[in-house]
C-alpha cells in the first residue's frame, strides 16, 4: 500500500487577502444595528441620536455655515502645529542621532520632557503666549515634536553602518551624509512617528479648543454639549473621526510617494 499527498504552500495564509467589500459591509451592519436600536429599542435621542439624525444635524450645520468656519479654524491650527512640530522634530532627531555631542546634551532633556502630558503645560503656555492662536498651535506642535524626534532618532541609530562607511569611502561631506544616507535610511521610521503624532495632534487640538477657544471643532462640541444638543455634538465627533481618517490616509499616501524603493 502507498499514499500520495500533494505539497501544499504552508505560507498561503500570509498572503490571504480578504475581499475588499468586507470592511464596508461591517460598517454598514453596525450603522444599521445602531439605527434600528434607536428607532425600535427606545433609546432616548438625548443619550444616543441615530445615525440619520446625526447626518441631518450635520447637514443643517453645513447649511448654516458654522461647520465650515469651525472646521477651517481647527484645520489651520492642527496643520500649522503638525508642520512645525514635525519639521523641528525631524531636524533635531537627525542631529541628535548623528552628532554624539548633541546626543549627550539633548537625549536626557528629550526623555525627561517626553513623559510630561503636554496638556498640563497649556496653562503655562497660555500665560506665556496669550490665549490666541499661537498658544494652541504651540501645544499641538509640542505634542507632535516628541514622537517625531524620538522616532527620527531611533531611525538614524538603526541605519546600517556599512552604508555610512560606503558614503565615507566616496568622500561624501557630512551634510550630504545626512541628506543622502541618514535621512532616507530613517524615513520609514520617521513616517511611523508622524502617524503616531497625528493622533496626539488631534487629541491636543480638541482639548485646547475646549479649554480656550471660541471657534473650532472642540469648542463646537463643548458648546452643543452644554446645550444638550446631542445630535449636533455627535456630528462634531463624526467630523473628528473623519479628520483623523483623512489625516492618516494623507500620511500614508505621502509615505508611498516618498518611499518609492519599497515594493
Amino acid at each position: 500500500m502507498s499514499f500520495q499527498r500533494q505539497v501544499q504552500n504552508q505560507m498561503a495564509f500570509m498572503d490571504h487577502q480578504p475581499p475588499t467589500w468586507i470592511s464596508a459591509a461591517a460598517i454598514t451592519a453596525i450603522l444599521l444595528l445602531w439605527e434600528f436600536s434607536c428607532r425600535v429599542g427606545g433609546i432616548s435621542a438625548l443619550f444616543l441620536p441615530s445615525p440619520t439624525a446625526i447626518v441631518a444635524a450635520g447637514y443643517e450645520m453645513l447649511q448654516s455655515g458654522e461647520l465650515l468656519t469651525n472646521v477651517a479654524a481647527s484645520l489651520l491650527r492642527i496643520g500649522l502645529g503638525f508642520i512645525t512640530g514635525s519639521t523641528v522634530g525631524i531636524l533635531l532627531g537627525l542631529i541628535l542621532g548623528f552628532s554624539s555631542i548633541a546626543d549627550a546634551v539633548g537625549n536626557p532633556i528629550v526623555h525627561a520632557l517626553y513623559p510630561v502630558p503636554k496638556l498640563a503645560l497649556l496653562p503655562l503656555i497660555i500665560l506665556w503666549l496669550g490665549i490666541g492662536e499661537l498658544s494652541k498651535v504651540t501645544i499641538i506642535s509640542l505634542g507632535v515634536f516628541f514622537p517625531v524626534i524620538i522616532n527620527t532618532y531611533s531611525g538614524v541609530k538603526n541605519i546600517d553602518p556599512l552604508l555610512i562607511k560606503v558614503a565615507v569611502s566616496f568622500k561624501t561631506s557630512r551634510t550630504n551624509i545626512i541628506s543622502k544616507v541618514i535621512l532616507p535610511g530613517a524615513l520609514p521610521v520617521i513616517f511611523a512617528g508622524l502617524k503616531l503624532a497625528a493622533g496626539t495632534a488631534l487629541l491636543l487640538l480638541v482639548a485646547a479648543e475646549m479649554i480656550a477657544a471660541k471657534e473650532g471643532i472642540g469648542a463646537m462640541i463643548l458648546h452643543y454639549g452644554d446645550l444638550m444638543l446631542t445630535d449636533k455634538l455627535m456630528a462634531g465627533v463624526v467630523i473628528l473621526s473623519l479628520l483623523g481618517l483623512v489625516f492618516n490616509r494623507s500620511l500614508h499616501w505621502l509615505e508611498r510617494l516618498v518611499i518609492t524603493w519599497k515594493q
Partner: protein
Amino acid sequence: MQVVIENVGKKFQSSRGDVTALENIDLTINEQEFVVLVGPSGCGKSTLLSMVGGLLSPTSGRIVVKDLIEDRDPLIGIVFQEIGLFPWRTVYENIKFGLEEMNLAAGEVNKRVDHFIRLVGLNGFEPAYPHQLSGGMRQRVGIARALAIQPDLLLMDEPFSALDAQSRTLMQEELLRIWYQTKLSTLYVTHNIAEAIYLADRVVVLSRRPGRIASIISIDLPKFDRDKGTNLFKFNSYCDQVWQLIRKDAQLALEEGDEQ
C-alpha cells in the same frame, strides 16, 4: 603612486577580551600593481582593507601613500564584502553616488555612469532598485560604483563571492580586461586560491591568530590566459604552493568555528 603599509597591527577590544586581528604587517602596493590577499576566514583580510581605505585606524604602525602626482588625498574605490548598495537608490543612482561629490559636469557624470553600467553588463537595469536584483547583479553594481570614480587605488573585498561559478569566471576575465586598460593599483581580497593566482601580480598569504604575513609570492606568468595551455602547469603549482601554506590554518579555523 605607491601604498606603503608599515608595521601595521590591529587589536579589537571587546567585552570577551582583546582580539589581535593583525600584527607586523609590512607590505607595499606599487604603482599599477595587482596585489591579492588570501588567507583563512577571520585572519584579518577585511580589517587590513578597511585600514588601507581609511575607514579604520590601525592600533600600531601607519599607512602612507607615496609618490602622488597631485597634492590631494588619493581617490580610493572600495568594493565591500557586503556590497552596501543604497536601497533607496536605483542601479543608476547607486553608480552615480561617488560622482556626485566630484563636481563634474552633468554630461560627464551621465557618460561615465552609462559607460560603467555597460562595462558590468547591467544595461536595461538602470531604473531597478537593489532588492529587485540578484546577488550577482548587486555585486556588479558595487563594482561599477567603485570604478566609476576612476580611483587611484582600488580595494576589493571578495567582490565575486556571490556569483555563480560561470559568472565568476567571466567577471574575472572582465576584471583583468578592465584592469589592463586602467592599470589601477589594486588590493584584492579573496579566499579562492585559483582566483588569486589568476589575477595577481603578487599573492600575499596571511596566517591566522594573529594575522601575519606568512608569505608573499610573485606570480611569474603572463597577465592573460594563465589557466590555459602551457601556463597551466605553473598555474597549478602556484595554487598548490598557496594551498599548502593555508591548509593548516584553514583547518584550525573550521574546527574553532565548530566549537563556538
